[in-house]
């Protein structure tokens, strides 16, 4: 049993935002119920179509992605995606991003009143904001604080805010402090890093390539603050999970690894469960 910001999770292994489809696709490879939590792709107030092709490009041990955050909008999500996830008994963390603080507050209001949302994760620095380029990105700590506060104010007690931070070693502690001061109950350290597609477009870089950078940010945050942290970025093996937990993370998020092997989360959950008999073979 993992405790995260008051939530009781079945496993310390969570699915990262945008890497588990709508949940239906992932469910083919293992019950969502067994996961620590299912983080949705980032949901916005209005529906978004997403960006141009190619949306993903392979890089050495990494993936560049510029999906443009396609999603059905919060109403579409609440109507068509959330009920199915809850029916699977998944713990649902809803990732959100917005064009303004007012929109962010509106999103929080709607999600806060929807029964079944376990937590809201604020995507504070989407590495690509799509062709519209219109989503807020928190560059400075005060922007982190403002965004977190806007969400926190609207959520009922018992629905914690998680702040997902850009893993930039030099600035992450300031951002983390601002998030905590504004009411974030936990942090997610391990957003994709700002990279460029071969054609020059902005994109996020994820996968094992960035693992050592994410680990550094985790270390910096935990050295400076006493706050529960969910660690992400480059996790693919049981050894990766154990390294992050050993560094002090409460839980981990698995993203790009799922695109490579859709059973990754289920395998990690099983390997880390208290009644796991043996280590999985390394992969």
């Amino acid at each position, binding site marked *: 049993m993992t405790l995260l910001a008051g939530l009781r999770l079945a496993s310390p292994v969570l699915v990262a935002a945008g890497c588990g489809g709508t949940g239906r*696709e992932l469910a083919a490879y293992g019950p969502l119920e067994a996961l620590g939590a299912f983080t949705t792709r980032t949901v916005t107030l209005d529906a978004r179509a997403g960006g141009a092709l190619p949306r993903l490009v392979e890089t050495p041990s990494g993936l560049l992605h510029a999906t443009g955050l396609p999603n059905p909008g919060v109403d579409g999500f609440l109507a068509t995606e959330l009920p199915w996830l809850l029916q699977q008994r998944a713990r649902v963390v809803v990732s959100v991003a917005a064009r303004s603080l007012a929109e962010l507050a509106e999103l929080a209001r709607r999600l806060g009143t929807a029964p079944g949302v376990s937590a809201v994760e604020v995507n504070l620095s989407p590495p690509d904001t799509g062709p519209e380029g219109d989503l807020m990105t928190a560059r400075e700590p005060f922007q982190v604080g403002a965004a977190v506060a806007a969400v926190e104010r609207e959520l009922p007690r018992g629905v914690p805010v998680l702040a997902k931070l850009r893993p930039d070693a030099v600035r992450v502690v300031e951002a983390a402090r601002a998030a905590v001061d504004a009411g974030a109950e936990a942090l997610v350290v391990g957003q994709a890093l700002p990279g460029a597609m071969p054609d020059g477009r902005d994109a996020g870089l994820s996968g094992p390539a960035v693992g050592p950078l994410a680990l550094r940010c985790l270390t910096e945050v935990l050295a400076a603050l006493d706050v529960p942290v969910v660690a992400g970025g480059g996790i693919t093996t049981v050894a990766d999970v154990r390294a992050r937990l050993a560094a002090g993370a409460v839980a981990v998020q698995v993203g790009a690894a799922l695109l490579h092997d859709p059973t990754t989360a289920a395998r990690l959950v099983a390997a880390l469960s208290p009644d796991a008999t043996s280590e999985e073979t390394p992969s």
Partner: protein
Amino acid sequence: MSVPVHVVAEVLASKRIGAFQHLTLVAPGVGERFRPGTFLAASVGSPGDPAGRSHLGRRALWIHQVRPLGGYAATVQVVVEPVGPGTRWLAGLERGDRLEVTGPLGRPFALPKEPVPTVLVGEGYAAAPLFTLAERLRERDCPVTLVLGAVDEGHLLNALEARRTARAVTVVTRDGSVGARGGVVDVIDDVLRRAGADVVYAAGPVATLHAVARAAEAHGAWSQTALEQPLTCATGLCQGCPVPVVGEDGVARTARACADGPVLRGDRVRWDDLVAAGSPS
């Protein structure tokens, strides 16, 4: 759509035929669930080798044949054209080598309920799923006319085998090395007219699929087009493979090539938008 499995497959045989490498895989659960038009996704790199983490994208391959072989109930045959690092690695695998595969993936070709005349169009390795489709259609007493295209003879999938199931076979190659010189586009109208087809099935590059869909519409036939879009995860997780479509209700939507496709109704795909969005055509 049946539930796919993710398994470590073993190579039972690998044979070069023309430009393609034919791999026969023992992939428990994949062949058993197969229906024509579904595919599998392969990982690059040996299972357990950390170098496998260096290529995170999957490689989609049509399931060509499913057969009992060497004591296995349902071995899976795929046809690989080595064009890049991943397909070259796959083509270099030898008997006994292992690889991770997920499948069967995607929605298969829809089969007609009535015994109507059909035309099957395939270009290059993409003709792979058409042979089992032809068998299923013949089981339903649907007459099958086959059109096979390729750049040259080496890139033409076993036309001989095809003649057994099909009523008529038309072959076109770009260089005229076998069959008529030209492309599928040059012959499709003629074939459709002569076959009096009610349903057209097509697999190949976007330009070919678009031409076939257009021709089918002109002839009042249904078309089922098997799209190849660059797929990163191939399992519906990454949102990397949008296809602009029109829903039953006439509203423009986005489908995912891997999970809602690869087979889509030709009249539902917004072909021009697909190319405009940056899809390789």
